[in-house]
């Protein structure tokens, strides 16, 4: 039924391998080498999707990655479907399934198409303007807006494919393998530069590889044939790596580029299996040669978006490369010679071209004669004022342009056609060049932005560098390469060239129609449905900056990033505002050049490899004993140990009681440990902690608080003096790395005169913390020879012992208020020591407890956790820990800040205890605290930082920071929650054993 538009066999298409694929549920056939776009065109399918805002029927515009319209959903019926794939880039394979996007129920009958007729009511900023009022209606609007928003369907399950990363270091990176890129890479590699050549397409050679027109010849052969020979020589060159299907996504400073290498997307399902789908290349190149070519621009005229309207260069590529005619009645519309080349190509292949409409007044270029000889009618000084055909172009109406190009005159002529090739000139693909931080300059003569300057690490060559004629390209390329690569000659500098020259130019950014602009639809950004009218409206409403106009009209904000239309947007703004185009600048070109899937970006760092997990030496024991884990920093810490089907609350209540009643054991291996040595170690500690350290005796431990220079609490922990010049510092689990880095910073930069050496030994020791009234008895069973009396081994002291030939350090320190001993063993013996403690503790019902119980027990004692009860705005004074701040020391980090006027203010937020009126109600951490319930606006006094139900006190307890809380002891405050107000009383922060008797009990 469908017409086959395959016109002539092409060497790039393998007509012996027929491939079936589905589009919108219907089966079609194509050949190996086809893209989805070329295969559909061969089947005379132009209607691919609907536009974003007006749901207008859209077809294939281009033949490459700049495609704005022909974006499709791959595997539409699968839960790993992929949206927004460009039909012009998808290589077909057996079993490929794709569907239209942005239409319902189907691309042929789309209900959203009504928006097209509502267009007068949908100007730029429509959503901003309309849905502002009334405010309370937003939730109702939101449902509908969200329903119509978005392009394509997201996958709903996790990406099953494998992605990879590779680092590449090379001397020369060449981006783009058109004629310039190939010659550049060849000459770089031949001159001993380790060279990498990348191209986003599957074939090398760019647009030259299918150039068989007489008007571009090299050494008296077609330029395509000459280039094929050059390409065939590449494989014999050492130092040269070539990657096709590899698109450079980003170009960062210092020649660091990211490229996506597509490995399996073009393969059949069975061949994709277990293979890496895409690889992100992270390239650091000494020199970069950008040979990214140029993109053809469309022309902006009324209804320039119908299926069948394509770039003239795409029409040529479909015929010359894929052997597909895009229509049976072809015409072209142009402002330059490109359309003539395309028309000539079609004519040579027997595809009928009826007319060329040219806005120029005349041209004496050689190619014009060839077109005349071919009998193709040329309409000089004409423009298209309208087009018709809803789902496929059927007619264009043309009129004569006035001399100034601002209006049309005479009568309208209608030309029937089913394909219109439009040619608005060429824009150098400078996206990567500007991403790298370089600036563009506007070439007024040719109306293009070109790279401002080359440097010793980067050049732009070919049409990317602003050279459009073959002879210019070759000559400039040779000179640039000699200079850039520091070589005396290139191997192509003597080739003979024949090419027709363009002799006349005329550029009109917005072509006039017989209707006023307000009644026309000249699309600038096809994907986002932004028209010239929208841009003019934005200017009328006061937007001036190109960046603002872009955001207001969404021009250039689609998945194609406005590769086709951005220049017209700039041109129309400049013309309307009466400024020079070069003065406007451009919008910022941002990576990625074409969309990347998240899989490529994360590579193999997914699932368990997303982040590093640190596990303690006792981890296996915790798993065996059914611990639940929590993430603390990068550590997996035992959270609680449920027995049978205990809830977390039940387990924590049981563990907490047991630790105070008899004995508990905690894996404290994750605490940061820093070994400090050197003759100035004591002085160093004096400077970094708020309290005094010089008089700490060897074998004793001391708690220390560390501040930032702004006086705010930064970290805390116990430090033990192991020897005259040797300390071991413990830090919080999460703060370990930051503490070490901060201490190193001060040592290296502020106090290089101090003789101090810091070593992180966190991973070297495992720590089992025995606690509870029976802990001494358990330890006695393990080390009977050690005198555990309070005289020999008092609280806050340390002993070095040997357990089963294992050297251990035992600190008698307590974070629970119970008598407790921290046994530090070399990490490899951690589990053995732990098991020994469990074994010895059996007769005392020793209970392993996790971090939650630890938090509860310390809260009963009012011990802070840095980062939970503090948040970077709390001084030691705010924490009511004045006792730890030395008055005598001349200086320590943060000292001066403690008496800045602001930190000394009376009504700062201070740490207090809270008791609920109803002892059963447990407050929510983070809940807000107020003193008046009926005040409006209500003053927020602070918030709850820690809250638990204490089984040992049989009531709810909480810590909170409250404005002026220090002076509020006994005062009643309120915690307003969603459904109720909770009454609380301010109390001491110490809820349990205020006299600290249990430490030595």
């Amino acid at each position, binding site marked *: 039924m469908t017409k086959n538009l395959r016109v002539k066999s092409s060497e790039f298409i393998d007509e012996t391998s027929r491939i079936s694929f589905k589009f919108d549920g219907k089966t079609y056939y194509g050949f190996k080498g086809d893209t989805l776009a070329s295969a559909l065109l061969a089947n005379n399918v132009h209607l691919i999707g609907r536009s974003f805002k007006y749901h207008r029927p859209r077809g294939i515009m281009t033949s490459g990655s700049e495609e704005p319209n022909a974006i499709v959903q791959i595997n539409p019926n699968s839960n790993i479907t992929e949206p927004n794939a460009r039909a012009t880039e998808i290589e077909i394979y057996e079993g490929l399934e794709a569907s239209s996007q942005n239409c319902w129920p189907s691309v042929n009958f789309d209900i959203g198409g009504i928006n097209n007729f509502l267009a007068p009511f949908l100007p730029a900023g429509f959503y901003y303007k309309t849905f502002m009022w009334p405010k309370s209606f937003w939730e109702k609007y939101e449902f509908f807006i969200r329903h119509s928003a978005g392009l394509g369907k997201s996958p709903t399950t996790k990406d099953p494919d494998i992605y990879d990363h590779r680092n590449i270091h090379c001397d020369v990176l060449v981006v783009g393998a058109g004629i310039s890129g190939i010659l550049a890479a060849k000459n770089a590699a031949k001159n001993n530069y380790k060279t990498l050549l990348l191209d986003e397409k599957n074939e090398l050679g760019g647009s030259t590889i299918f150039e068989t027109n007489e008007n571009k010849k090299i050494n008296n052969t077609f330029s395509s044939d000459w280039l094929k020979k050059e390409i065939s020589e590449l494989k014999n060159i050492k130092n040269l790596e070539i990657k096709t299907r590899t698109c450079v996504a980003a170009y960062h400073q210092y020649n660091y580029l990211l490229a996506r290498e597509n490995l399996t997307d073009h393969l059949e399902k069975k061949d994709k299996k277990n293979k890496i789908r895409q690889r992100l290349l992270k390239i650091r190149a000494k020199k970069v040669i950008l040979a990214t070519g140029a993109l053809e621009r469309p022309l902006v005229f009324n209804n320039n978006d119908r299926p069948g309207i394509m770039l003239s260069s795409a029409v040529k590529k479909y015929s010359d490369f894929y052997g597909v005619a895009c229509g049976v009645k072809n015409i072209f519309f142009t402002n330059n010679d490109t359309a003539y080349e395309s028309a000539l190509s079609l004519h040579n292949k027997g595809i009928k071209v009826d007319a060329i409409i040219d806005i120029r007044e005349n041209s004496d270029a050689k190619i014009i004669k060839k077109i005349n000889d071919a009998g193709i009618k040329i309409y000089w000084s004409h423009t298209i004022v309208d087009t018709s055909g809803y789902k496929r172009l059927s007619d264009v109406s043309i009129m004569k342009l006035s001399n100034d190009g601002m209006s049309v005159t005479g009568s309208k002529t209608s030309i029937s056609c089913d394909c219109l090739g439009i040619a608005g000139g060429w824009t150098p693909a400078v996206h990567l060049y500007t991403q790298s931080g370089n600036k563009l300059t506007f070439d007024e003569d040719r109306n293009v932005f070109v790279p401002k300057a080359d440097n010793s690490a980067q050049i732009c060559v070919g049409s990317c560098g602003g050279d459009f004629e073959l002879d210019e390209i070759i000559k400039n390329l040779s000179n640039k390469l000699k200079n850039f690569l520091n070589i005396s000659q290139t191997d192509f500098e003597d080739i003979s060239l024949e090419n027709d020259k363009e002799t006349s130019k005329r550029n009109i950014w917005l072509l006039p129609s017989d209707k006023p602009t307000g009644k026309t639809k000249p699309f600038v950004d096809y994907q986002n449905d932004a028209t010239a009218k929208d841009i003019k409206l934005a200017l009328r409403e006061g937007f001036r900056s190109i960046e603002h106009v872009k955001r207001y009209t969404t021009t250039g904000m689609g998945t194609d990033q406005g590769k086709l239309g951005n220049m017209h947007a700039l041109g129309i703004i400049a013309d309307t505002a009466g400024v020079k185009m070069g003065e406007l600048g451009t919008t910022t070109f941002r990576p990625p050049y074409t969309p990347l899937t998240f899989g490529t970006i994360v590579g193999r760092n997914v699932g368990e490899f997303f982040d590093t997990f640190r596990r303690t030496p006792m981890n296996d024991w915790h798993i065996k004993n059914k611990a639940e884990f929590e993430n603390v920093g990068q550590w997996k810490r035992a959270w609680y140990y449920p027995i049978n089907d205990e809830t977390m609350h039940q387990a924590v209540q049981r563990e907490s009681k047991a630790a105070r009643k008899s004995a508990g054991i905690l894996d404290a291996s994750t605490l940061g440990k820093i070994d400090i040595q050197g003759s100035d170690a004591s002085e160093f500690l004096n400077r970094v902690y708020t309290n005094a350290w010089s008089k700490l005796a060897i074998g004793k431990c001391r708690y220390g608080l560390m501040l930032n220079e702004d006086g705010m609490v930064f970290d805390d922990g116990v430090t033990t003096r192991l020897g005259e010049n040797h300390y071991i510092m413990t830090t919080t689990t999460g703060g370990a790395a930051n503490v070490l880095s901060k201490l190193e910073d001060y040592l290296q930069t502020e106090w290089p005169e101090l003789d101090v050496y810091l070593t992180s030994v966190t991973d070297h020791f495992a720590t089992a913390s025995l606690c509870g009234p029976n802990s001494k008895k358990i330890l006695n069973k393990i080390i009977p020879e050690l005198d555990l009396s309070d005289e020999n081994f008092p609280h806050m002291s340390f002993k070095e012992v040997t357990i089963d030939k294992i050297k251990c350090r035992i600190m008698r320190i307590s974070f629970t208020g119970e008598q407790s001993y921290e046994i530090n063993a070399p990490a490899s013996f951690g589990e053995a020591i732990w098991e020994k403690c469990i074994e010895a503790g059996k007769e005392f019902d020793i209970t392993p407890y996790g971090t939650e119980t630890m938090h509860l027990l310390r809260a009963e004692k009012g011990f802070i956790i840095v980062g939970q009860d503090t948040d970077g705005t709390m001084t030691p004074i705010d924490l009511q820990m004045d006792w730890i701040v030395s008055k005598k020391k001349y200086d320590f980090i943060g000292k*001066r800040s403690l008496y800045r006027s602001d930190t000394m203010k009376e009504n700062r937020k201070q740490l207090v205890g809270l008791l609920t009126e109803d002892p059963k109600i447990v407050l929510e951490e983070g809940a807000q605290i107020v003193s008046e319930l009926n005040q409006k606006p209500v003053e927020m006094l602070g918030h709850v930082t820690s809250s638990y139900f204490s089984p040992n006190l049989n009531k709810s307890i909480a810590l909170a920071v409250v404005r002026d809380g220090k002076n509020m002891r006994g005062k009643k405050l309120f915690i307003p929650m969603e459904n109720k107000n909770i009454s609380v009383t301010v109390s001491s922060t110490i809820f349990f054993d205020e006299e600290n008797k249990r430490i030595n009990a």
Partner: protein
Amino acid sequence: MFLINCPYCGERDQQEFKAGGEAHIERPKQPTELSDDQWAEYLFMRKNIKGVQFERWNHAHGCRKWFNMARDTSNDEIKAIYKMGEKPPPQ
């Protein structure tokens, strides 16, 4: 992504480094003698210039050494790298 020439290790990728703010701000030797304003000047005030700026950098995932860098913030060109304690190069 910068390529940074660590004075101890050589050229390494930026991801091995940590930026540490403005360089050549010396911690006052006698903080107690300073007024609130003088202390605030040391504590909070930092330059943010378009042009060559002197910065501290740390080879955090390498040798852990701190060093100084003169960087043009307008184009990210690294003008010089020099060790802690050394004077900034003449502009």
